[in-house]
């Protein structure tokens, strides 16, 4: 029966053979269940692992790189920062509210597993177009789920991204990133420690959540359950997670744990085998001690359950009582479920009998490494042949239609549903560019920007990924912060297609080379494959999360008023509009080859932006990305309700999205200083106009006037109009 069972668990015959070889005998059902989840793409990275090793992951300030639950960097003054990004794409498609909510819960656990207090959340979400009711339902549900969980768990959501593209209609993307802070003596790793160490399961009780393939096993005994093959939806409980966070942080403060591992994908199986493998030990796991939500669970179900809000703490015997007391004080359940054993065997007991006996490390280290075929898709050349120069439309008309686009308009409909002020550290919350939080007791600020752009990356995954890294860096630079570390989340299609593997390797090459050039390490990330519906893959959609540090936090610019100069800083734009919002909104096309980054120019723009924020009083900076310079300027003017007189030579100057460019609005007395700094750094500065009045007058061939209030109305109305009537139920 097992022969066919492994196929039903999604394993190949070769993989089954490998298990047979590891064990020297056919695996028992519970063992097969464990290998099937641990060797799955999600947990084992079998398609990607071989390629991830080429990424730059080192820097003097890196304390923990890829391989643990989160990356950790030293930010000085005795503080460490932990960061991590994950995807919850498929669960969010099945059930948007719970899918997004449990995604938030999972990324939080990755962070406080390291000993850090989560201080900020970011999300990057992508859907089909809002003209379709189902896409509105998904978008609304995902936003409500992030709000429902993040707000209640008590961690501010400080930013993110939203995009709408037909290609995501059958496969929305929901990525979440979390940043945590910890004292440098409080770092905790996912290690099981020495033999004799006790495994304590903390938090929610275990039910059949997320068991899909496993229900096949279950149904061997329970036929009535055979009908439901799909994983049962996981429900998030932010209240339980909040108590779990406080309990774990108290355990760390009192140095009561040797190691901690969160229970996410692969549940108990992963939480037992990964820490044991890392510590090079074995473990005896007693499933009868696990606190349960529902009776009658089989061993495979217990081993694979993905019930949320659970953590595994590894504790020296003499501290077990104290750990249970802390759990009781925070009103969470705790059970002693295992003991670390010498040797390398992971043994699992259920109903008093041993049901599993495997080398712990074989579940993690001996997972297959696939070298999938790679082929450059022919259609790339056809896409590049599409002329990226497009017929001109009056600039005011183009600007209005872009500001009215849900993906370019005001985002407050989204971020005002998220608590972004908790902890009283939010110096710059969601709105534009990155976000900036102060680090109490220091003069430092931490800035984060997350950036993705599927249209750019489908045209050229390598250049696209490079652009994202430099865009994220400039987004924190305009807040006065220097890039420190990157996490990335690679959302891709089906890796069994050589074209998708090509997109993957190109994306990695782009990420690696850009981070190398920028001198910023990649400290963690996530790969999400199989983002396809009916054989149609999504655009390759890498998301870059970049952490920067401002030291000190630059002074706040005063209000933006009339009589200020509007400058565009950075290289002259090329003639390429490839992948731009202008192409999409104004002409409904996608094509051409995106402009490549120029690391030298990029570095100089970043340097200049940082200097201006610290040196030039009252300068307002805004990175030029989607929508180009004119949209960037319009956003600043709308925010302050001030008009301007702007001269623009070409479509590219107005709407081009070439990298390394930002807008700087500065008082007359500041202009000379900016010019001098630009000379020192070696940046090109273009004076395109002056603020004043209540209209935006655009001079290009003729002059056109648009009242700022009209721009505001269109920009503010974009999302609410598109979302009218949407609810989540």
């Amino acid at each position, binding site marked *: 029966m097992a022969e066919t069972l492994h196929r039903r668990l999604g394993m190949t015959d070769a993989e089954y053979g490998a298990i047979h070889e590891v064990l020297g005998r056919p695996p028992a059902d519970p063992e097969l269940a464990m290998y099937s989840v641990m060797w799955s793409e999600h947990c084992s990275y079998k398609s990607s692992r071989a390629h991830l090793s080429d990424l730059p992951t080192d820097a003097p300030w890196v304390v923990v790189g890829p391989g643990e639950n989160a990356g950790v960097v030293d930010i000085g003054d005795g503080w460490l920062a932990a960061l991590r990004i994950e995807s919850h794409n498929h669960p969010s498609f099945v059930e948007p509210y719970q899918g997004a909510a449990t995604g938030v819960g999972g990324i939080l656990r990755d962070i406080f597993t390291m000993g850090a207090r989560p201080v900020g959340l970011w999300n990057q979400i992508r859907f089909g177009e809002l003209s379709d009711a189902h896409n509105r339902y998904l978008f609304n549900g995902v936003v409500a789920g992030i709000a429902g969980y993040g707000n209640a768990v008590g961690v501010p959501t400080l930013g993110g991204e939203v995009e709408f593209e037909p290609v995501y209609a059958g496969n929305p993307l929901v990525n979440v990133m979390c940043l945590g802070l910890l004292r440098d003596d409080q770092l905790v790793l996912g290690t099981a420690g020495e033999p004799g160490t006790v495994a304590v399961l903390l938090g929610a009780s275990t039910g059949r959540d997320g068991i899909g393939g496993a229900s096949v096993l279950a149904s061997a005994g329970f036929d009535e359950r055979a009908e439901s093959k799909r994983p049962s939806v996981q429900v998030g409980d932010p209240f*339980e997670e909040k108590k779990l966070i406080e309990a774990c942080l108290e355990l760390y403060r009192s140095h009561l744990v040797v190691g901690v591992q969160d229970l996410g994908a692969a549940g108990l199986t992963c939480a037992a085998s990964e820490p044991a493998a890392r510590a090079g030990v074995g473990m005896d796991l007693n499933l009868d001690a696990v606190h349960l939500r529902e009776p009658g669970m089989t061993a495979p179900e217990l081993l694979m359950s993905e019930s949320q809000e659970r953590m595994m703490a590894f504790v020296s015997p003499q501290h077990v009582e104290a750990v249970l007391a802390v759990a009781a004080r925070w009103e969470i359940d705790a059970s002693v479920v295992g003991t670390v054993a010498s040797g390398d065997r992971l043994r699992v007991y259920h109903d008093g009998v041993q049901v599993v006996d495997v080398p712990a490390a074989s579940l993690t280290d001996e997972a297959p490494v696939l070298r999938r075929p790679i082929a450059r898709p022919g259609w790339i050349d056809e896409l590049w042949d599409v002329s990226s120069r497009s017929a001109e439309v009056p600039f005011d008309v183009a600007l209005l239609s872009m500001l009215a686009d849900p993906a370019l308009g005001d985002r407050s409909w989204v971020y005002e549903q998220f608590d972004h002020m908790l902890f009283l550290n939010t110096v710059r919350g969601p709105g534009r560019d990155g976000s900036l939080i102060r680090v109490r007791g220091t003069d430092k600020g931490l800035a984060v920007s997350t950036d993705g752009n599927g249209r750019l990356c489908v045209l050229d995954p390598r250049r696209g990924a490079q652009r994202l890294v430099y865009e994220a860096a400039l987004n924190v630079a305009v807040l006065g912060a220097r890039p420190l570390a990157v996490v990335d989340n690679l959302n891709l299609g089906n890796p069994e297609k050589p074209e998708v593997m090509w997109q993957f390797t190109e994306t990695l090459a782009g990420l690696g080379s850009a981070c190398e050039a920028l001198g910023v390490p990649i400290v963690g990330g996530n790969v999400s494959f199989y983002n396809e519906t009916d054989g149609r893959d999504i655009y390759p959609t890498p998301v870059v999360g970049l952490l920067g540090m401002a030291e000190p936090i630059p002074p706040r610019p005063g209000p933006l008023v009339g009589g200020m100069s509007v400058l565009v800083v950075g290289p002259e734009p090329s003639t390429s509009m490839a992948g731009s919002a202008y192409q999409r909104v104004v002409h409904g096309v996608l094509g051409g080859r995106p402009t490549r980054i120029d690391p030298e120019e990029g570095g100089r723009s970043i340097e200049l932006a940082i200097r201006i924020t610290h040196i030039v009083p009252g300068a307002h900076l805004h990175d030029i990305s989607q929508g180009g310079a004119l949209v960037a300027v319009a956003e600043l003017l709308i925010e302050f309700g001030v008009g301007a007189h702007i001269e623009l030579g070409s479509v590219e100057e107005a709407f081009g999205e070439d990298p390394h460019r930002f807008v700087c609005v500065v008082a007359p007395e500041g202009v000379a200083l900016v010019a001098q700094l630009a000379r020192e750094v070696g940046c090109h500065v273009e004076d395109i106009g002056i603020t004043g009045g209540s209209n935006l007058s655009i001079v290009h061939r003729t002059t056109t006037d648009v009242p700022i209030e009209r721009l505001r109305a269109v920009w503010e109305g974009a999302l609410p109009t598109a979302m009218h009537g949407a609810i989540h139920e």
Partner: protein
Amino acid sequence: MTVGIIVFPGTNCEEDVAYALDALGAETVPVWHRETSLDGLTAVVLPGGFAHGDYLRAGAIARFSPIMAAVEKLAAEGHPVLGICNGFQILCEAGLLPGALIANRDLRFICRPVHVRVESTDSVLTRAAAIGQVLTIPLNSYEGNYLPGPEAARPILRYCEADGSVTGAANPNGSSDSVAGIANSSGTVAAVMPHPERAIEPFMASTDGRVLLESFIAASEAASLGAVDG
């Protein structure tokens, strides 16, 4: 003079409130919901958050926590009691203030600064403010939509436009009569839906929260000298 800050499982604004009161010169101490005594404390704050996950109804479970008997006693003695956001909901559920709070009109969580107008200075939260004064304070709630009970509430703050006019458009959550804050008849028990502790430093939305928290601190000091209001 020490102010107790009640912490329920799921509360998340306790440290923000402590930070703000401390910045304004008050001593505070956290009090876990399982405790039964507030001896030595002259005033308490029930801070924002999601006590017990806001399950069942916001505040419905928290109001049965052991500490609440002591809070009721303190209130009965005329000591200052302040509820912020979730604390407002708990005080209503506990019957220390009239009415109830239900889901926002648009069924969406709202986190943004709003304008509120001071309607009465006869409360521990508003005594240092001026009638008609317009304050900008961040709102942060899903169930902020106030519903009066049989006994009339005494509004101390109402949602308004920047110029102080109370309009339907300025009412962010459908709160009846645009109520943003209320007090009991003696003004010693007060509650507010927006978060004054989120408006105390220049980098925040505003510094208008200070006058409210300074009122509360002054009232608490008065109480500690035995000169209890009401």
